């Protein structure tokens, strides 16, 4: 029992905050829990709980193309995220820092991919790719995803950049670091929380996209969400849940592996790196 009023108040405040956060997580995770539970449902279509089965996983296990869809989705999402974060981060800094003729136009055009319905963006990108003879498929999907991820990254980044004290950039250049070095060693670390947010956002948008992917996809570039949505149309089968569950597990596994690798690397490195994972 804490002794003092302020401390007690603080504790109570913290409990409320933690409780609130837990509630939010509960809200977000409840559907996921249901999704996972129903992936074991013994029913052709998910209506209610009808008993436990593993047959949906068995079915997917024998379907070799699942691995392919997963790979395609992940590679696309990761590439689109990396590209968007690079273009977006550079762009956000550039748009805040420099004055140039097209700046206003670019600034306003950022909102277009966010506001325009996916259908319209999908169709117009398809027409563009057709026009420039870019073969549909992998590359096209990545380009399309980058197109709608970049604005999100930039808007998040600008929220981060605004009012951020970047006088340390001057200090860096003063110490002989050129702009590039300054950007990588000073600006970037200070923007890191924005970059992380932007990356999460891009990855999420990309991994969840169906409509635009569908328009610019080619024969060998079916992503998992496209496959899932196509399945949904012929019945809400637990197989869909199983697929989505596998998808999330694979990604969780990836994160876990990544953090283990990083932990090992960090142990080896002598200097302390501010790591976010």
């Amino acid at each position, binding site marked *: 029992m804490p002794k003092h009023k302020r401390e007690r108040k603080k504790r109570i405040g913290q409990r409320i905050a933690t409780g609130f956060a837990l509630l939010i997580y509960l809200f977000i995770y409840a559907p996921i829990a249901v999704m996972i539970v129903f992936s074991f449902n013994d029913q052709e279509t998910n209506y209610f709980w009808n008993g436990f089965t593993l047959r949906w996983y068995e079915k997917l296990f024998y379907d070799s193309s699942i691995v392919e869809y997963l790979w395609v989705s992940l590679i696309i999402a990761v590439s689109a995220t990396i590209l968007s974060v690079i273009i977006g981060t550079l762009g956000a800094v550039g748009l805040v820092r420099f004055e140039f003729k097209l700046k206003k136009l670019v600034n306003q055009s950022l909102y277009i991919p966010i506001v325009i319905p996916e259908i319209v963006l999908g169709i117009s990108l398809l027409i563009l790719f057709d026009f420039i003879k870019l073969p549909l498929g992998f590359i096209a999907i990545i380009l399309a995803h980058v197109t709608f991820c970049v604005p999100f990254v930039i808007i998040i980044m600008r929220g981060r950049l605004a009012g951020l004290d970047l006088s340390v950039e001057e200090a860096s250049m*003063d110490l002989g670091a050129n702009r590039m070095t300054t950007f990588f*060693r000073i600006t970037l670390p200070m923007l890191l929380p924005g970059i992380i947010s932007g990356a999460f956002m891009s990855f999420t948008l990309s991994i969840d996209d169906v409509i635009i992917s569908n328009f610019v996809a080619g024969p060998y570039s079916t992503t998992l969400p496209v496959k899932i949505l196509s399945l949904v149309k012929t019945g809400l089968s637990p197989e869909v849940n199983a697929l989505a569950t596998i998808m999330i597990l694979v990604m969780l596994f990836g994160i876990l592996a990544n953090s283990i690798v990083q932990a090992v690397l960090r142990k080896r490195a002598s200097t302390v790196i501010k790591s976010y994972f």
Partner: protein
Amino acid sequence: MMGDAIVTLLDVDKFFGANHVIKKLNLTVQQGEFLTLLGPSGCGKTTILRMIAGFEDASAGSIEVQGERVEDKEAFERDVNTVFQSYALFPHMTVFDNIAYGLTVKRVPKQEIKERVKEMLALVQLEGFEGRRPDMMSGGQKQRVAIARALINNPKVLLLDEPLGALDLKLRKQMQLELKRLQKKLNITFIYVTHDQEEAMTMSDRIAVINNGILEQIDTPKEIYKHPKTRFVADFIGESNILEGQVLDCQDGLCRIQLETGMVLLQSPNRKPADPVMICVRPEVMKYERSPVDGFSLPGTIKDIIFVGAQYRTLIVLENGMEIKVNRVKPEKDLKEGDSVYLYWEPEDALGIGDLKQGGSVNEQQ
């Protein structure tokens, strides 16, 4: 010791919006010189340093560093380093990384960096702080990191904006000595901002006194102190009692001056009778007795005697209400508040403001 001009400001003006902050500034700094900028808060010292460093563009005029216009080179291409008034330490780096930064970007070998950072840490007395982040340090510690970070690069020109302001007296004195030693040893040109007048006096080759964006005087410390050109300089540098009067007559460099409260003497080059004159008498050379002395003396009353550490300050009020400060190492034991005294000084101790210094050399003023 000193060579050619290494920093030149020519007719520099600076506006922030409608705010005219620097006004037609001309300034030449010699290779290897230690130049101090002195002036009231907000007079433009930081702005001048920032323009020299190339972070701020002059609104008019030109600035050259090492013979090249600052606009033509990027900050990182020049051999100029800065100790920022607000430190501007990299918040995400440790003390070690902060100090090593300049060397790291120059790709100095790791081992050498380690050694030089160690040296620097010893210099600023922060051994053992290598692994700290700036937000875990005290104000003075941060300031020392900022100094070390700039100093480690052995730049040609070092700009220091109140680099010792957050340090205690003792440490400050030590750092002054170290800075001066390094400056001489490595022949670095220092452009230094400080509010500590003793610091300015002891360390500088020359002092530039700035007031409201205008260069009032630039000269050696002694000359600035002994021969202030303007009332502002006399008043701003050191403590002073400034008396206004008119010349009665002059003979052999000794003038009789009529003040409101009496006649006084001043050693000065000839002045025309009836000329207005301002006399500056430093508190440490002002004298007083219980009874009028030969020559001249101004009657006054002791208002207060304050202990200020190394000395006692006596405030004496003249008949016209003006307050005169007198500093003494020990208080006159038999004097107390309310006593009447007579003020006087040795004529050669009083300064006539604006008097040309003897054998004066040319300086940069317009």
